[in-house]
């Protein structure tokens, strides 16, 4: 087993990985940017190193700074989390060159599956069905337009080097194509440093179904069932669940087998996810493979009773898994809600602010993975995912009700979030009937929040709160100035930054 592991990430996933390392008795190191010195993940590790200023490109994306921290602290392995450098083959290779184990798949598998164009070619060669598309890395905008005309509308423009919905655009009309490609390229360049795009036929009302695969140290490849992630906005997931209400045992067997074959085609090791689109005819098509742990991995963990991060660490250390893959059986139903700093009533625009009050929900069958703490600033530097709330129940119905209740218990004041919105989604008949597809939110909640009127009690509360001095509101960082409110009465601010 490793002596010491560095977690090259931040926020909720860094906390989650560090917790498993602690439970495994493995020493751990966290890295922070200057803005994250007091972040929750800094306190979840044995040692902390500051690796640069706030912008990710100067800290969490800086290979050399991370390797320096690993060397200085004597780490023999690095866990990359998700996002950042987790799917960067060059980073994986740099780790290996430095004599540090990269906890993840082999760099070549990352490289192939990390290029949407190369991965589609590899899948086609392996006989895995793919979504019809056009990929020619050097193609200019005019060639793309011609290809789109030939494929037929609507067309989806996607970034070759990335995911998470960035650089992605649906084009319904030919006249919108040119500017859509330009914007997609700009986004892709900013997010991944590569403006190569490719096209896919945009399927109507598809369901996003992905399969968790795993390759252990002995080279055995297996799967841990599927997750449905159809409820999305801006092509980013906000609700995920396992199992999928659309997948029966037969389909699970076929998709699982296909996913394992996809992983085998690139000699995969460690944790990965093969994403498919299930069309309205019941056919599934390969979309992409994510060569890392996914944000929504907790729903699989809760249904199969496994710790995937522990499995990753053991596999990378060459050790056997603590469970028999052949004996894995799913039990019950798990649903995850992603809490984002965004305003669903204003086009899901990212929100900023400072966390004034916070309460995470807690009840039997609930799991909360969070990167929030009171007093923390939520800015635009990093991804707006704040926390994940996952509920498990014996049935989908029970899990839904539990998750709704947990969201009702969740208190985050100071920055706008989508908590209320998520509660409303889970109350929709279409959700409860499992009638999901990637256009679900546009269809069922297109104008959420419009015309909302605050009840008199809320107004009265705000009026009262505006007058009373709150002793727990900390002065803003850098202002230095005291206000009349901090001098009146018996209240004393808790601190000055």
């Amino acid at each position, binding site marked *: 087993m490793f002596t010491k592991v560095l977690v090259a990430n931040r926020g909720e996933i860094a906390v989650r990985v560090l917790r498993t390392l602690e439970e495994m008795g493995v020493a751990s190191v966290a890295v922070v940017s200057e803005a994250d010195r007091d972040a929750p993940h800094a306190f979840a590790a044995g040692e902390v190193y500051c690796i640069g200023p706030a912008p990710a490109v100067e800290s969490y994306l800086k290979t050399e700074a991370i390797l320096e921290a690993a060397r200085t602290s004597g780490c023999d392995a690095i866990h990359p989390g998700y996002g950042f450098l987790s799917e960067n083959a060059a980073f994986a290779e740099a780790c290996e060159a430095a004599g540090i184990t990269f906890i993840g798949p082999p760099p070549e598998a990352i490289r192939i599956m990390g290029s949407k164009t190369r991965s589609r070619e590899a899948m086609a060669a392996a006989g895995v069905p793919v979504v019809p598309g056009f990929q020619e890395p050097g193609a200019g905008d005019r060639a793309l337009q011609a290809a789109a005309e030939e494929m037929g509308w609507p067309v989806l423009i996607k970034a070759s080097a990335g995911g998470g919905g*960035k650089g992605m655009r649906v084009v319904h009309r030919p006249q919108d194509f040119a*500017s859509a490609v330009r*914007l997609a390229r*700009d*986004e892709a360049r*900013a*997010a991944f440093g590569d403006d190569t795009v490719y096209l896919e036929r945009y399927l109507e009302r598809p369901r996003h179904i992905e399969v968790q695969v795993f390759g252990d140290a002995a080279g055995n490849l297996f799967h841990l069932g599927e997750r449905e992630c159809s409820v999305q906005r801006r092509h980013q997931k906000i609700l995920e669940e396992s199992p999928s209400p659309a997948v029966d045992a037969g389909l699970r067997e076929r998709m699982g087998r296909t996913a394992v074959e996809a992983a085998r085609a690139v000699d995969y090791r460690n944790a990965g996810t093969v994403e498919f689109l299930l069309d309205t005819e019941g056919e599934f098509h390969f979309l992409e493979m994510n060569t890392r742990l996914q944000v929504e991995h907790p729903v699989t963990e809760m249904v199969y009773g496994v710790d995937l991060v522990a499995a990753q660490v053991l596999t990378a250390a060459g050790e056997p898994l603590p469970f028999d893959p052949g004996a894995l059986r799913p039990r019950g139903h798990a649903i995850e809600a992603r809490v984002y700093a965004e305003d669903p*009533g*204003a*086009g899901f*625009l*990212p929100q*900023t*602010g*400072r966390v*004034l*009050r916070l309460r995470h929900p807690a009840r039997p069958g609930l799991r909360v993975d969070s990167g929030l703490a009171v007093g923390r600033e939520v800015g*635009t530097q990093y*991804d*707006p995912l704040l926390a994940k709330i996952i509920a498990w129940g014996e049935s989908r119905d029970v899990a839904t009700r539990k998750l709704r209740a947990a969201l*009702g218990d969740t*208190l*985050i*004041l*100071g920055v*706008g*979030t989508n*908590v*209320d919105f998520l*509660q409303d989604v889970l109350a929709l008949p279409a959700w409860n009937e499992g009638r999901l597809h990637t256009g679900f939110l546009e269809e069922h909640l297109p104008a959420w929040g419009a015309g*909302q009127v*605050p*009840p*008199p*009690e*809320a*107004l*009265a*509360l*705000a*009026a*009262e*709160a*505006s*007058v*009373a001095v*709150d002793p*727990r*509101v900390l002065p803003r960082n850098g202002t230095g100035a005291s206000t009349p409110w901090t001098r009146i009465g018996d209240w004393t601010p808790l601190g000055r930054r």
Partner: protein
Amino acid sequence: MDIRLGFDGQVHLTRRKGPGVVDVVAEDGTEYRVEVQRLPGGAFTTQAGGALHPAEGARDGETIWVRYRGRTYRFTLERGRRSRRARPAGDLSSPMPGQVQKVLVAEGDTVEIDQPLLVVEAMKMQLEIRAPRTGTVSRLLAREGDQVEAGAPLAEVREP
């Protein structure tokens, strides 16, 4: 004491009659009395017409957050005697903090409804700011490279 609270573009009037006693004034002038009790630790209970409900609130400068019966509200404290003037329909402001990446038009240009005027980049996303109406770009308030805050005015499009 009159306290005006902004919510989603509308201004609401409340009258604080004493500690924990607030009359909320409806548009037609009728008043609805709510009793608010502050609990240790910063929580509240409210009582109106019999039922007692727990709630939570927090203030940060001019912004007041309230969580009441499973809903989160964000209010702004409105200073001044008059309600906030609603922004004229042709004014465009930045939806979020970011940087102006491209300015696609000039002052005086005629534009069509939905025509892209500027591109703002934030959180690695490119957002097109589009003309809300057909008309003339009467003012352009941002240049390429400008850092803007949420709500910062960017341009005005007026009737041709």
